[in-house]
């Protein structure tokens, strides 16, 4: 394994992402993008980007103008062959655009050295794409080495990243990829992409090759990691549910990278731009919306609460007085143990002190989807909600969830003013007119400047 670095250009010493380099484009970039509040990400601006392959009549990507806000997760979804991967690969210029401009954090990177650009952008592919002849640590150290970091800094960074992706550095540092499970390989792939702390992370179907359970876990991990690192992430997927789960924004493509809709998951679910998007969402859009909201975001109802082992008749009286059908029995720390109905109470003298495993119960961090599921399983048509360390917080019933759905639909219908730009400037005619009207802030011509009208 030769330690050769055949790079000839000058070393890029500074950690990318910490400062804005290079020339500014003529368009006035909004100032707040450079002050980088808590995000370390940078915005991406694809300006009328087209990719034509020789010998093919129709361009693979046709005049895409796409704004990707800094620190946000943008999902590119669409059927296979729609050009979403090509669009992604043009951001780091693995595929060179035939026409158009790529602006990264205010810097036009269309014609800078491609390898140098790619060192500033994390890239994750399916199954991690780890090099089998290098250890986990060597894989992660690749980009920092190219950037000529010193050894101690690289070692510290490897440790930090393995911790971040939930792998014990002492155990995994010197393992080879084949000694890892698929999910672990994918984690290392993410760690490798984050190695030089790039402001932007591109992922191409990152969780396509792992089993559903691992995929779910990795998605949750990615959400957690993003909460820590605040990168700009662009993720290609064909799984709409994954897009809803991970994305702050979703771009729905159809053939030729025609942008059909670019919106928040809530809005796409509530107001699909056209039939194509509807079909792509699949059935159960309203149910999927439930997956977007957490129990803590809806108002939980009060309940009659009584201590375990207390007098049952007394609790029954209180429930009757409050007009409640059930009484929540809690232990001395306030954690619910049983949820007897008034009928059950009338048959007992003391409240139960033993945990009832059939009691419907969700944490406040659960999605409304989980809550509804729990309710449907129990006979009560409602579920108890617990907060930190399992303490009882309230009751959520089916009506509460119904209200939440309708209010979400209303709210989604209103949110449009801060939506980023996404159009096909080259081929507006090919886009169904209906979707044009629905798209927010859509000037629809080639002369759009980046984020001109926020």
């Amino acid at each position, binding site marked *: 394994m030769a330690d050769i670095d055949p*790079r000839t250009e000058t070393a890029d010493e500074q950690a990318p992402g910490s400062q804005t380099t290079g020339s500014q484009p003529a368009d006035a970039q909004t100032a707040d993008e450079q002050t980088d509040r808590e995000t370390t990400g940078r915005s991406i601006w694809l300006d009328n980007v087209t990719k034509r392959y020789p010998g093919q009549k129709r361009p693979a990507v046709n005049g895409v103008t796409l704004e990707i806000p800094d620190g946000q997760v943008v999902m590119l979804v669409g059927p296979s062959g729609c050009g979403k991967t090509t669009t992604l690969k043009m951001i780091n210029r693995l595929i060179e655009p035939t026409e158009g401009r790529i602006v990264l954090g205010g810097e036009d990177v269309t014609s800078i050295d491609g*390898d140098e650009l*790619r060192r500033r*952008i994390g890239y994750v*592919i*399916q199954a991690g794409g780890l090099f089998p002849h290098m250890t986990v640590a060597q894989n992660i150290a*690749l980009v920092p080495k*190219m950037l000529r970091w010193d050894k101690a800094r690289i070692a510290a960074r490897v440790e930090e990243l393995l911790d971040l992706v939930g792998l014990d550095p002492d155990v995994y540092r010197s393992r080879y*990829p084949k000694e890892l499970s698929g999910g672990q390989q994918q984690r290392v792939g993410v760690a490798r992409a984050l190695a030089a702390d790039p402001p932007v992370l591109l992922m191409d179907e990152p969780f396509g090759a792992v089993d559903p359970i691992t995929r779910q876990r990795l998605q949750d991990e990615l959400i957690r990691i993003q909460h820590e690192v605040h990168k700009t992430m662009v993720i290609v997927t064909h799984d709409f549910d994954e897009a809803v789960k991970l994305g702050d924004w979703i771009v729905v493509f159809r053939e030729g990278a025609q942008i059909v809709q670019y919106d928040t998951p809530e809005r796409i679910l509530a107001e699909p731009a056209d039939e194509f998007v509807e079909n792509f969402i699949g059935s159960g859009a309203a149910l999927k919306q439930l997956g977007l909201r957490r129990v803590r975001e809806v108002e939980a109802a009060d309940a009659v609460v009584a201590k375990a082992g207390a007098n049952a008749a007394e609790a029954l009286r209180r429930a009757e007085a409050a007009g409640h059908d059930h009484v929540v029995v809690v232990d001395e720390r306030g954690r619910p143990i049983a949820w007897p109905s008034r009928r059950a109470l009338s048959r007992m003298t003391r409240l139960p002190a033993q945990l009832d495993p059939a009691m419907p119960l969700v944490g406040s961090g659960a999605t409304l989807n989980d809550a509804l599921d729990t309710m449907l399983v129990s006979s009560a048509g409602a579920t108890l909600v617990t907060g930190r360390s399992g303490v009882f917080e309230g009751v959520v019933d089916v009506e509460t969830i119904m209200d939440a759905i309708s209010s979400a639909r209303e709210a989604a219908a209103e949110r449009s003013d801060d939506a980023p730009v996404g159009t096909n400037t080259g081929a507006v005619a090919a886009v169904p007119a209906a979707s044009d009207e629905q798209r927010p802030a859509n000037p629809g011509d080639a002369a759009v400047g980046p984020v001109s009208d926020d």
Partner: protein
Amino acid sequence: MTEATTASGTGTTTESVRGWRALGIQILVLLAILFGFGIWVANAPLSPTERNTLNLSTILELTGQHLALTIVATVIVLVIAIPLGILLTRGPFRKIAEPVLAIANFGQAAPAVGLIVLLFMLVPDGFRASIIALVLYAILPVLRNTMIGIRGVDQRLVEAGRGMGMTAASVLLRVELPLAVPVMLSGIRTALVLLVGTASLAAFVSGGGLGLLITTGVNLYLFSVLISGALLIAVLALIVDWVGRVVEHVARPKGL
């Protein structure tokens, strides 16, 4: 011998140990054959002419010539075939890969004896003529395995490398070639064994080597010399094969 195996993981260690054991047995058998041959030569009722040919210094000298032919030809083959093989997997040259392989195939398909004799008429130096013929003969396996090895590297790994900002040269040196090493080495080993065998033909054009024992044996009806030559060439080929296997074993990238 075993320290090379300890570095990799548990799964590979047992495999590796088994590999080393097989290699150990191979060389022991070969050494035993040589030993037996030595005892036979020392005790057999040989005529003075036979004695004259089958003494240690002559055998060593011929073996030296044989190895020189093999090694020089191999080095030239490697210098030509590996860069050519790499080149033929690079973008624009991929198209001409098939024609080049066809030419290399031609070199191998041509009968080696004919090739050597023909070249001797063009290059009246036995050693040089033999080298040229041997090189033509052995290019194919190395060239083909270099190309197969590199082509066999998962394209997604190449893309991953480019995607993280490695230059094309860096991806070649640090990803493609290391991963192609096992396939390339097995091609080189094949070429070496071919060369040891084919180098016997150099004796026809006074290029030296152990083939001389065979030609002498045939010309003078000395069966013991003829058989000794054949045996020594076979054992030499197997020893070279053994060295090749050892190198393959050691040079195989860990983690594969």
